C-alpha cells in the first residue's frame, strides 16, 4: 500500500469512537412459521440512511414496527442511544420513555398519510402538535414554526389553516414529513413514503427528502419495495426475503453487483428502458 493510500484510510481509533445510534441484536418476530422476521442484526450510525428492500410479505414492515417500538418482538434487543436517556433497551424501558422518544427524538412517516396525520384539524395544528406535546405554549411561535416547515416542504403557507383532507396525496405526504421533522428528530422511520403517488410527485418527494436528510443530518431507516427509491436515498441496503436478511452492503454495491440469487433476481426485474 502506498503512503497516499494509507492516509486515506480512516484512523481506526477515531472510527471506533462513534457510537451506533441504533443497535439491533437477534430480533425475532413471527406471527406463524415463515411469517414475520427473524435473526436480524445490524447497527445504524448517526447520519446514515438504511434501506430495507424486499418483496411483499418479506417482513420489512414487521421489522420496522419492531425497530420503532410499535410491536414487541418475540425475542432480541433494540438498543437506542438517546440524547435524553442515554443508551436504552427499547423493550426493557418504561413505556413513558418510549412515548417521549416518539414525539421528540423520532419521527415515523407512514405509508398512508392518513395514518400519520390528524385529518380533522388544520395543517398548522398538525405541525404544531409535536411542539405543543413537548411543552411549547406560545401560539405565535408555534404558528411561525408551522409556516416555516410548510415552506420547507414546499406547501404554500396560505394553506396553513386548511385541513389535510383538502390536500392532494403528495401534499399530505409532505405535510406528514413536516409534522415529523418540526421537533428536529435524530432518527426517522419511513414505511414506503412514496407508495401510492404518481411518478412525477414521487420524484419531487424523493428530491425533497434527499435534501432534508442531508441538510439536517438525519438518520433514516426506510422500507421500500422500489429499488429506485432505495438507490436514490439509501447509503446502505438490507435485502429481505421470507423474514430473513439475505444480503447487506452499500447501496451501489448491492444493486450493481448483487451476490445472492434473490437479489440478482430482484435487480434484474427492474424494467429497463
Amino acid at each position: 500500500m502506498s503512503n497516499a493510500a494509507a492516509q486515506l484510510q480512516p484512523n481506526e481509533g477515531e472510527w471506533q469512537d462513534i457510537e451506533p445510534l441504533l443497535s439491533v441484536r437477534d430480533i425475532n418476530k413471527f406471527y406463524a412459521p415463515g411469517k414475520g422476521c427473524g435473526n436480524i442484526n445490524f447497527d445504524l450510525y448517526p447520519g446514515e440512511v438504511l434501506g430495507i428492500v424486499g418483496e411483499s410479505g418479506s417482513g420489512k414492515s414487521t421489522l420496522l414496527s419492531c425497530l420503532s417500538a410499535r410491536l414487541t418482538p418475540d425475542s432480541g434487543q433494540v438498543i437506542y442511544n438517546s440524547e435524553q436517556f442515554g443508551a436504552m433497551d427499547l423493550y426493557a424501558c418504561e413505556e413513558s420513555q418510549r412515548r417521549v422518544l416518539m414525539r421528540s427524538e423520532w419521527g415515523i412517516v407512514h405509508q398512508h398519510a392518513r395514518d400519520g396525520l390528524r385529518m380533522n384539524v388544520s395543517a398548522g395544528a398538525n405541525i404544531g402538535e409535536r411542539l405543543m406535546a413537548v411543552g411549547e405554549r406560545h401560539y405565535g411561535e408555534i404558528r411561525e414554526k408551522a409556516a416555516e416547515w410548510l415552506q420547507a416542504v414546499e406547501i404554500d403557507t396560505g394553506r396553513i389553516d386548511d385541513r389535510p383532507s383538502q390536500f392532494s396525496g403528495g401534499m399530505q405526504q409532505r405535510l406528514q414529513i413536516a409534522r415529523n421533522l418540526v421537533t428536529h428528530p435524530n432518527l426517522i422511520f419511513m414505511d414506503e413514503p412514496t407508495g401510492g403517488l404518481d411518478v412525477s410527485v414521487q420524484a419531487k418527494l424523493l428530491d425533497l427528502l434527499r435534501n432534508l436528510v442531508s441538510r439536517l443530518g438525519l438518520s433514516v431507516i426506510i422500507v421500500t419495495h422500489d429499488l429506485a427509491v432505495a438507490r436514490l436515498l439509501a447509503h446502505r441496503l438490507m435485502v429481505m426475503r421470507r423474514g430473513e436478511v439475505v444480503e447487506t452492503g452499500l447501496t451501489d454495491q448491492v444493486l450493481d453487483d448483487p451476490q445472492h440469487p434473490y437479489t440478482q433476481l430482484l435487480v434484474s426485474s427492474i424494467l429497463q428502458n
Partner: protein
Amino acid sequence: MNAATATGYNFAYLDEQSKRMIRRAILKGVAIPGYQVPFGGREMPLPHGWGTGGMQVTASVIGEADRLKVIDQGADDTTNAVSIRRFFASTAGVETTEQTADATLIQTRHRIPERALQENQILIYQVPIPEPLRFIEPRESETRKMHALSEYGAMQVKLYEDVARFGHIATSYDYPVMVNGRYMMDPSPIPKFDNPKMDMMPALQLFGAGFEKRIYAVPPYTKVESLDFDDYPFEVQSWEENCSICGSNHSFLDEVIIDDAGSKMFVCSDTDYCRERVAQQENPA
C-alpha cells in the same frame, strides 16, 4: 320525613349496596383529584343525558338532614331542576330549597351559583362527556394512557384551532382545566365564566356522568387552572349590558328574545342570585 314521602322505595331511591359502591368511587375520586373513576352506573327513572350521573351521586351522599337545591342553567324553575328536586323530596323526604345559602347539597347542570359556596356545601355536577381528550383521541385505551403519563400536549391542539380560526380562544363552555397540577379534567358544560370559581373552592365538587359511568371529584381548596397559551391567556366572558332585573354588572347573563321584532333583554342566569339582589335593593338591611 314528611307525609309526601313515597313508600315502597329505599331512602333516596337507590339500594344501599349501590350507594356503597358509588361512595367508594367518590372516595377514590376525592383521593385522586380530577381522575375519572369508573363505576357501575345504575338505571334511574329518567333518560340518560337528563342528569342520571348527578342523581346517582346525589342519592349516595344525601342524608335526612340535608337541604337540596337543584339548578339547570342557573335556574331553579326549569323542567329538569323541578323534576329532580321533586324526585328527591318524595324518595328521600328531604327538605328542598331554592336559596344557595341555605342548601347543603346543590345538584347542577351547566352552572356554578354566583354566590360563593362554603365548606359545609357539596356541589354535584351532571356530566355528559367526562373525557376532555375525546375530541382529539377517540380511543379510550389511548386517552387513559395519556392521562396516566400526563401527555396533555394534544389538548392544546384544540385551543390552537380556535385561535387559528377565530383569532381568540373561542371555546366558551366545557373549557378544559388542570386539577391540582396533575389531571386534565372536563368541568362539564359550565360556561368558562365559572371556571375561576372552581379554583380553591371551599365546597366539595363531585361530578357524575351516568351515560359514560364515570365519577370524578375536586376536593375543597384544590388548585384548578384553565388551559391557555402564553400569548393568548385565559379570559372569561363579559357583557356590555347589565341584568335588566337586578342591574348586576358582574354575573353571567342570559340573552332573552322578548318579541317577534327581535328585541332582547339580558338577565342573570342564576335566578336565586338575581332574586336575592332585588330583595336587598327593596329592603336594604
